[in-house]
């Protein structure tokens, strides 16, 4: 068995593809489902560029075999709302854009789970997404702007 049929609920749509057994979730998303927004930064779970939401939790998709995601809900950066993108852009969240999709996904999860910040600071929370361009201030102010918005709406 070198290939198998992988079924995902990918960005709200049920999809199935035949993919190599050795594929990571990252490979499946990029090469088989054609969603290249998710980036590979290090391949070892250090940088967070490949962050996606798997069953509603942020994971490094380079550390998940595609097989492990069988039947699961997967959300990728491609499903981000334009309003979220616009807010992040205004504060300088993205420079080169390679770590950015991972940051967007971690930030989206935080907006849905803001009580997480009772246990840790935003800086600590974001430490799984390494960025080489911004020094993080632009990233953090972008996320704060999103959180303020969420709070305003709820």
């Amino acid at each position: 068995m070198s290939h198998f049929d992988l079924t995902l609920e990918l960005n709200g749509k049920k999809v199935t593809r035949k993919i190599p057994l050795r594929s990571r979730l990252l490979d499946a998303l990029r090469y088989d489902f054609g969603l290249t927004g998710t980036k590979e930064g290090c391949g070892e779970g250090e940088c967070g560029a490949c962050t996606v939401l798997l069953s509603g939790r942020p994971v490094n998709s380079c550390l998940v075999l595609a097989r492990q995601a069988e039947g699961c809900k997967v959300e990728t950066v491609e499903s981000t709302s334009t309003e979220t993108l616009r807010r992040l852009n205004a504060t300088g969240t993205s420079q080169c854009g390679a770590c950015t999709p991972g940051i967007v996904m971690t930030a989206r999860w935080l907006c849905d789970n803001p009580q997480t910040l009772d246990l840790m600071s935003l800086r600590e929370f974001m430490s799984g997404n390494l960025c080489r361009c911004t020094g993080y201030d632009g990233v953090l102010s972008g996320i704060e702007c999103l959180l303020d918005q969420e709070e305003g709406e709820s």
Partner: protein
Amino acid sequence: MSLDRVDGLDKLSGKSAFVDDLTVPGCLFGGTIRSPVARGRIRKIHFSTAVDWSDFVIVDHRDIPGSNEVALIESDQPALASTNVRHLHEPVLLLAHSKLHRLREGLRSIRVEIEAAPPLFDVEAQPTKEMLQHGSDNVFKRIDIRKGDPASVFAKASRVIEGTYRTGSQEHVYLETQGMIAHQEGETLVVRGSMQCPYYILDALTIAFDRPKERFRVIQCPLGGGFGGKEEYPSVVAIHAALLAEKAGRPVKIIYDRQEDMAVTTKRHPSRVRHRTAVDDDGIILAMEIDILFDGGAYVTLSPVVLSRGTLHATGPYRCDHVHVHGEAKLTNSPPYGAFRGFGAPQTLFAIERHMDVIARDLGLDPGELRRRNLLCQGDTLATGQKVQDGVDLTALLARGEELAGVSLATQEYAAFNRSHPYLRRGVGRATFYHGAGFTGSGETHLASEVWVEGLADGRVRLLTAQTDMGQGTMTILAQIAGETLSVDPRSIEVVTPDTSLVPNSGPTVASRTAMVVGKLIEDGCRELQRILDSGSGPPSGKDFQNALELHHRENPGDLLRVSRSYQTPPGQNWDEVSYQGDAYACYSWAAHLAHVEVDLRTFQVRVTDYVALQEVGRVLNEVLARGQIQGGVAQGLGWTLLEEVILENGAMKNHQMMNYIIPGSGDLSPIRVFFEEIPSPSGPGGAKGIGELPLDGPAPAIINAVCHALSASIREIPLTPEVLMEFLGGKE
């Protein structure tokens, strides 16, 4: 104004297609077989018999149609080693296969047999005869800058203070690794990928293939970070991909994975800088002797120009009439060191700015006060004789920085805190420095950069340059400059992605030159366009400009309304490459950075608790982008200072994984507080100067000076990892 990044939404949404995101039908995957030793003669290449090699494409040096070199300043670096290797991981052979996992199997199944020769790893050691591999002394470049008569001053000086300072290498860790795709399109070899300098690649391809420029087309993909790491190295990947594609007759994609990228690509030059300084009892600097040594690695690459910038920043922003700066870049059997944001200046500025604190301590003076007594004033001259005339008051800049950082209050509080706390120590440190913007010396004159500004029939304007956006915001800033010049919405300005078949050669995207030098040409080009469209009532702008443009095209259908602008050396700017005298840079950016630190004597970890970055960069064009440049540069500088250690084994990076080479995360930083002074400069558009590299110069000296303040110590080397600090303190409580 701050125009939102024009490519920002595509990057945030993941739409921007980096080279590895591109799918090319029929594409093969390419990979590189490398030298397993640091130096030797290639004996034989063994192909495992367990692998069926018939469906692999295999390229070696004999497949290179032209000169086997990665053309740059000199011709010494082969594209593929033929007989000898000079560093670990040197490319020897290329493979391509349609399946990535078969390619990996192939790469695992080839062994290069080498008759090893003794390698040279210690750049400070005098090379023995058998270690000589470049000229008569392994020296790639030697530079002397002389001013006045330092020898006679030293002979009479009552107080001479010496110090030796060392800095380690640094890996760029752009989040997108190196990659290229090459394919044949009719008679043309097309290469696209991650690069800062499309025309460098074009030049390198014409020489390696011995074919005219017209036979190549080099296209830049969105770039996931560069920092200098994609200045010269991408030429290697481009030649390799092109060689494979030509032999295969099919497209070939080479993408380095993170481990390969970190192990084999260029890094910041390690340095050793010695200072001898004569001072009087008031702390006035009388004479300086500075001796600089850079480890260049195995081939010349850019070391001569990195050394040049290093020597030109070595004196720091201080007045001194008697100076001798001597610099050398020398060979070792490490992979070549290369361009990295700051380009030699962070190394020599670390040395002088630490040395200033060493002098202050020796004299019992406050380090801020010592600086104030020696900082350059308008009209003073640098070591090259260049007159300082940017209009900045450096003593005021430093005073404002100290005020913003609350230095005087902190100094008192920390003294009390340090006496009472069992294991925490606090300190504050500063660095004052400058960074020359644009190419060094007559570099810009030689480059003769050209840009095109086109007025389109629909009333929009199109900009054509070779400037790449690696995250710093080229596309946004050029659009903004044109928009402001013409008083039109910058979002209506089209900035063409660099493609050597479409854009003129406006020079490389390096040296903090894009906004200032190329931006100025764009500004001039836009003004020229306004003059052309002037119907007698003055140069049109805003809606009038767009109307005039549309009218022009109605009256002249099919006209290509294109303005070309080329760099002209400003009158009165002179540079002598031989004597190193004259105007080394068109202008300088100036800064005072201040760091507060807390050292934990249980773990020897240093935490930067506050960082103030105050700089004068001319007019700030785009506040959000400018702050992003400063904050990112400071974070990268902090990493170089405290966290990032390139551990070498056989001359090459051993810890070539992101989990073992530690770049700062969000939790390692406190907010980086950014402040600007704005004195409009005649050198750049709307009064702007270069900004990109400046912030990397400050963190190392500011942070280490703060650590030394906290511990009453004199540390002279970075990176200052906890392990290094522990050994330095020698178990002192």
